[in-house]
C-alpha cells in the first residue's frame, strides 16, 4: 500500500505555528484521516482551524511561550498600525493602547478562569501583593505593549519624549520592584 502524504505546507504551518502538548497526536490523526479521505481542502481546513484552537488552549492554561506571545503582540500592533496608518498619530496611539488593553484584559480573564482548574500552589508564578495577584506573563505582555507604545510616542511626538522617558523609567522600576518582591515572598 502506498502512503498518501498530506499537503506539506499545511503540516509545516500547524507544526510551527500551532503548539501544545497534543500537536503531534493531532498531526498524526490528520495524516491518518488524510490517507483515507485524500482531500487537500479538508486537510487545509482542519489545520487552519487547529492553529487558533491551540492558541486558545495555551492562553487558557497560561502556557503560551514568551517569545511567541511577544511575536503575536508585535504582529498585532503592526497590523493595527497598518490598518489605521491614515489617521493622526495621537489617535493611532490611543487606539493601539485601547486594543492592547483589551488584549491584555482578555488574556488575564482567560488565565483567571484557569486558576480554578489548575492544581497545586501558585502554578503559574503569580505575584501576590496584598489581596490581588499580578500574573507574571500578563505583566510581561503589558510591559512589552507599554514599551512599544512609548517608542511610538518617542518617534511620532518629540515634544512628549521627556514624559515618555520618565514613564519608561517608572515602568522599569516597578518591574524591578515586583521581581525583588517575588524573590523574597514566593512560596
Amino acid at each position, binding site marked *: 500500500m502506498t502512503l498518501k502524504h498530506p499537503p506539506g505546507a499545511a503540516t509545516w504551518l500547524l507544526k510551527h505555528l500551532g503548539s501544545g502538548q497534543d500537536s503531534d*497526536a*493531532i498531526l*498524526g*490523526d*490528520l495524516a491518518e484521516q488524510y490517507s483515507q479521505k485524500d482531500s487537500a481542502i*479538508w486537510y487545509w481546513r482542519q489545520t487552519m*482551524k487547529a492553529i487558533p484552537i491551540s492558541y486558545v*488552549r495555551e492562553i487558557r492554561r497560561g502556557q503560551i511561550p514568551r517569545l511567541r506571545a511577544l511575536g503575536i503582540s508585535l504582529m498585532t500592533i503592526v497590523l493595527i498600525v497598518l490598518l489605521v496608518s491614515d489617521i493622526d498619530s495621537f489617535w493611532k496611539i490611543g487606539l493601539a493602547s485601547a486594543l492592547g488593553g483589551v488584549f491584555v484584559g482578555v488574556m488575564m480573564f482567560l488565565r483567571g478562569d484557569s486558576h480554578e482548574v489548575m492544581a497545586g500552589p501558585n502554578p503559574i508564578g503569580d505575584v501576590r501583593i496584598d489581596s490581588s495577584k499580578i500574573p507574571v506573563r500578563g505583566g510581561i505582555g503589558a510591559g512589552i505593549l507599554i514599551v512599544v507604545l512609548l517608542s511610538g510616542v518617542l518617534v511620532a511626538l518629540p515634544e512628549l519624549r521627556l514624559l515618555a522617558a520618565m514613564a519608561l523609567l517608572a515602568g522599569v522600576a516597578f518591574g524591578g520592584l515586583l521581581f525583588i518582591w517575588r524573590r523574597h515572598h514566593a512560596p
Partner: protein
Amino acid sequence: MLLLALMRLGDDAYGVTIARELEKQTGREVVVASIYASLDRLQDRRLVASRLGDATPERGGRAKRYFRITGAGISEVRDARRSLMNLWNGLPELKGEKA
C-alpha cells in the same frame, strides 16, 4: 456527547475514531483539534484519562493518544442523563410523536 462517544468506543478511543463516531452521530464535520481541546478540559476535571499509544507509518510515525472515561466521568454522564430525562418528562407530547 464526547463522554458518550468515549463510552461507545471503549479501548479504541483516539482522535480519529472519536471524530468518526461524532461525525456519524451528528452528521457534521468535526475539527480534530477541537476534540483535543474539549478532552483537555474534561481531563482537568478528571472525567477522562489518557495515555500515549503506538505510532504507525500512515500517521507519519506519530503516536496515538488514547482516551478513556473515568469513574467520575461515568457518574457525570449518569447525572446528565437523569437531568435530561427529567426535562424531557416535563414536556408535553411533541407533534406527531411522544416526547
